[in-house]
């Protein structure tokens, strides 16, 4: 390609043509291994996934797969179980990520700035321990908390309040709470960093002007950390959309389909019903949901500022 280009442009002096190319190659060469690895291990599997989504590949029970065009996607939109999973995914994401982790993380970060050092360290350590625990371990912990003979019911029983099997009666609430419990630390860290970056003079002068706590929060703090809010919301949402182990350990998407979010639905179709092609198509649709959320957040972050 470069040879052809060189042949067509004889007017330019040789050195002038060669130098930029060599520089370009030199500049690019340290990145080459990384690029190759990325293509191989990231773009490769993603491309393969996209391909599989258009076939009827199965895990077992099938001699060879064939190309089926958009059949998997048509099937998804006609499948009440899929629509149910989309709704539950949105509920789960809004409850646990946008309302739960995000708000609670901001509140904790704000409160911890005022707290004494021991309280700060203790709270921080606790919240972060929940975050660092592997997803599946957190899932089992929360399972034993919500289960019929679990901790929550023991406490309620002790207070003479009615008990119930939370995983059965309120499965989406239970898994959402679990996700908040597990993921709040991330928001807290982001917001701690953002809050400490606000110059104290700004807050002080607002205080001198007589602005109350709520006014300061609304007019000073939130606008000043809006970029962090956007970043945090985006990362949180993407992470929450793909939560699988937590829900699988706690409810397996049940009872019935009442906590079957998209990742659980996808696993159910791809591995339990062995419809790998269909499951992969659902995965692509999940990717699309994530992309929509990301675009919305990016727009929010870009405006004014």
């Amino acid at each position, binding site marked *: 390609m470069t040879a052809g280009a060189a042949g067509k442009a004889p007017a330019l002096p040789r050195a002038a043509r060669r130098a930029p190319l060599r520089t370009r190659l030199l500049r690019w060469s340290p990145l080459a291994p990384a690029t190759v690895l990325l293509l191989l291990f990231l773009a490769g599997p993603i491309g393969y996934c996209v391909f599989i989504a258009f076939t009827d590949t199965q895990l077992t029970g099938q001699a060879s797969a064939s190309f089926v065009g958009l059949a998997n996607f048509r099937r998804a939109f006609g499948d009440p179980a899929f629509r149910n999973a989309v709704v539950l995914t949105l509920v789960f994401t809004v409850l646990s990520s946008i309302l739960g982790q995000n708000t609670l993380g901001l509140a904790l970060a704000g409160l911890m700035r005022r707290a004494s050092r021991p309280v700060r360290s203790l709270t921080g350590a606790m919240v972060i321990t929940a975050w660092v625990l592997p997803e599946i371990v957190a899932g089992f912990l929360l399972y034993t908390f919500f289960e019929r003979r679990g901790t929550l019911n023991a406490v309620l029983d002790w207070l003479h309040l009615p008990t119930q099997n939370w*995983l059965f009666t309120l499965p989406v609430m239970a898994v959402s709470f679990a996700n908040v419990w597990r993921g709040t630390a991330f928001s807290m860290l982001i917001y701690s960093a953002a809050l*400490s970056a606000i110059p104290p003079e700004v807050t002080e002068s607002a205080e001198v002007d007589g602005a109350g706590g709520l006014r300061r929060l609304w007019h000073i703090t939130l606008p000043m950390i809006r970029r962090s809010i956007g970043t945090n919301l985006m990362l949180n949402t993407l992470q929450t959309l793909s939560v699988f182990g937590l829900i699988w350990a706690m409810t397996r998407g*049940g009872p019935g389909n009442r906590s079957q979010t998209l990742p659980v639905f996808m696993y159910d179709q791809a591995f339990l019903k062995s419809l790998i092609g269909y499951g992969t198509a659902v995965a692509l649709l999940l990717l699309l949901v994530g992309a929509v959320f990301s675009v919305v957040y990016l727009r929010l972050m870009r405006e004014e500022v």
Partner: protein
Amino acid sequence: MRPTAPLILLAVAVVAAGTLTACGSGSGDDRNTVKVAFIKDTNAKVTVRDDYIRLVAREFEKDNPGKKVRLIPIQASENDYYTKIQQMMRSPRTAPDLVYEDTFLVNSDIKAGLLRPLDAHVNAWDDWRQFEPAAKAAARGQDGKTYGVPDGTDTRGLWFNKKIFRKAGLPATWRPKTWDEVLDAARTVKRRVPGVIPLNVFTGKGAGEAAVMQGFEMLLYGTGENQLYDPASRKWVTGTKGFKDSLGFLDTVYKEKLGPDVSDALSPNIQTNVAAELLPEEKLAIDLDGSWLGQQWQKTGGGNPWPAWSTTLGQTPFPTQHGRPPGRVSLAGGWTWSVPQESQQPDLAWKLIQTFQSRKNALEWCVRGAQIAVRKDVAADPRYLRSVPGIGFFTSLVKISQYRPALPEYPKVAAAIGEAMEAVTAGDASPEKAAKDYDAALATAVDGRTVAKP
């Protein structure tokens, strides 16, 4: 001082500790090693199968100097186990050389090209003549070739607690003739022995194929002939009254609170709970379950030694819906040792199968695992007949036992049945609605090869 710094340091330290200790385990691809994948009980205390396999592996290594057996125990619920081995078998780099397969998956895995035919081996093997024809058929593909050597079979019936029955005024020689008599006994227990779960029937998606086979099909097969698959037309059956009635039975059990709490019944741990807690702690009066339950309570490897079980529990056949002849119903299944297509050591794997199913080891497994023998010589052995109380009863069910339609689509059909059961048990759908949804799901699962029956 920024408040985040110590927090981040802490996080990094904990993450590092987590990842660094979970160090990888490298494995050399040894020509002299045969890899064996099998299911490990979700109750870690139950090591019956692990112990037996280890025993055979040691014998194999002693008889074949220089050869090694690498065990790959997979601790998972049954459905997760199937998924795992299917994935492993797809690639030569991960495929085990020998795999423990449930016979209901054999045809599905054959069609997917995951298993190797063993005809040349079994035909040259003297012991093969000892195997019961029905057991041989369980591991035969639709192409007529043999893809596995079965290591036992199982049957199903009602287990009941005689002590609870005495308290409820029910006879210790209980022999229900119809579904209604089963339900009546459960209602009597509920009335007279409070605090005890009257009747357990596995249901829903949590228990996986166990719910479909021990629960649903035990009911369905007692409602009429060929209610699931019609061999004459080679089509799957929709719209039967028997299907709705079977769901109706479950509906009654769980609506009248004759069964375990619905949330427990639908939990993936229900099988472990029944065997490890509810039955030994005498909190369950009647259990519709398999012949192998006794293995859980063996003195060695049983996890929950319970010597009194043989006198406390009675067994009786599960009746047909209205007492239609032969008056009792049972399903038989079983597992086989199979060699994956991608196995790197198929000949060594075959040698290991022979060791597993030598007369001595087959007897050992039937005794330890409360299995029903598939070898005639083992079935006649006095040690086998004395091994587990009730073995005679369950062995007697073999001749009336029916088999699941072991076709490639069956696992998907079973998944659809599990969903219908779950919907009814959770109260999300009436039996009629769930049966209708099943018909639709079935049509998709078998590509429209269905036939409607009244």
